[in-house]
């Protein structure tokens, strides 16, 4: 036990007094936006041009919150003997009321059509409005930050390695 009664309380109050003289650590959120790191998982952005409708993201999603629909179109490639078939994306919706923000869709996308953006202010009054269609997902693209450089002791990002290879080849 403490030597004199109330020592523990006095020590506690001393902490309070000490803290009182310091600057507050609280940041008044709507007025001061938080600094979020580039890897922050806020919302998923879609680069529509890169999507080939391979459906990997929709299949790998643990709770199937990605809805994709497409149709096939014939494209005449100059010089080619036959018309080529191409997938055209009609619908790409992510239901953020179901999304668990795990990032698996972004990881499995082989054509870099999906990106994380730290943007988080998209709360809605109606849960149905959390279903973002491909236009809305496309709007997030401009908020996607460049990825941080990797620790020099580790391996560089695979994008960096790929870029270096193409540079050497070209």
């Amino acid at each position, binding site marked *: 036990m403490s030597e004199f009664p109330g020592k*523990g309380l006095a020590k506690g109050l001393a902490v309070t007094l*000490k*803290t009182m003289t310091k600057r507050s650590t609280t940041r008044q959120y709507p007025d001061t936006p938080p600094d979020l790191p580039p890897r922050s998982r806020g919302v998923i952005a879609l680069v529509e041009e890169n999507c080939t409708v391979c459906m990997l993201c929709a299949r790998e999603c*643990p709770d199937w919150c990605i809805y994709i629909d497409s149709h096939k179109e014939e494209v005449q490639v100059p010089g080619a003997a036959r018309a080529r078939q191409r997938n055209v994306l009609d619908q790409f919706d992510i239901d953020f009321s179901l999304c668990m923000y795990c990032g698996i869709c972004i990881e499995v996308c082989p054509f870099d059509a999906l990106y994380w953006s730290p943007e988080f202010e998209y709360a809605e009054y109606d849960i149905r409005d959390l279903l973002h269609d491909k236009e809305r997902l496309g709007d997030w693209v401009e908020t996607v930050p460049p990825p941080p450089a990797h620790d020099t002791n580790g391996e560089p990002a695979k994008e960096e390695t790929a870029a270096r290879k193409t540079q050497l080849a070209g």
Partner: protein
Amino acid sequence: MSREVVVGTGAGLDTADMVLNIGPQHPSTHGVLRLRLVLDGERVISCEPIVGYMHRGAEKLFEARDYRQIIVLANRHDWLSAFNNELGVVLAVERLMGLEVPERAVWLRTALAELNRVLNHLMFLGSYPLEIGAITPMFYAFRERETIQAVLEEASGGRMHYMFNRVGGLKEEVPAGWTTRARAAIGEVRRRLPDLDNLIRRNEIFLARTVGVGVLSAADAAGYGASGPVARASGLDLDLRRDEPYLAYGSLDVPVVTRTTGDCHARFDVLLEQVYVSLDLAEQCLHQVDTLQGPVNVRLPKVLKAPEGHTYAWTENPLGINGYYLVSRGDKTPWRLKLRTASYANVQALATLIPGCLVPDLIAILGSMFFVVGDIDK
């Protein structure tokens, strides 16, 4: 078992036992736990924890999800120690596959697991005093949590559900300069932690509420399969990080914090001491990470299949021992993945701990058992 009568029917001076249900909703229970108490006045005669209100069928879902999707589910049953939960799953899968994880990943994982332990403990160090009436420690605990969460968010992108483990290592390399910033955060937390310590540990009111209350004997703790800080506060000297090292713990000297009194204050004390220990361990790991070069994961096929067989991996999670019994029939999903969670075992001890105590002590005991309801119900 004594006679149970509905309140209000007892006539005159006859006192009847009252059945009181605490929960399923109660602010002191971190979720939806129900305690069925039989009271004789202010004294609790019997207590039966009724679990299952938050059962989400995680184990059954594991059987229908591939190994990457399991990590998503696994880091959610105990939402305060997501990294450690992910770790148990991937360790089990790696063991079954006979996979060698790069050394840099092993040390990074150890560092992150210890940082997550600090986060978990800080949560309880803040919420436990809050439950018995002291609001202020919460603010100090959350100030420290925020510092460490920023570091984890920078590496993984998540503040709670990190999703940073993968079978064979980690998702990706940490950003440049991250280890330095992580060390700075650890230093800052270590410097400011005495604030929390001075504020509450020897506070007379806190001592009056917790010392000698809810004494769990080492035999009872062992009998109920309690583990982690709860068991160590009763003198049960068991810590897998030292006794059956996984990750890089084998090459670290892990000081195991124990107390012998087994009361609420001892449990709080163990938690607070463990934060200091974990900060030291995390710092050592980060120093080691800086000396290692190389990849943080293993290149694996797109469709990952664990070979036929079974294995049991267990880890020292912040709340106690978590076990993962993985049975695979060679498919891309496990045939069965059984979870042994720390909170489930720890909360069972309430049945012996609470009878005989007073209603006000009930909250002190309940809060000091450090459980997450999601971890009980899975």
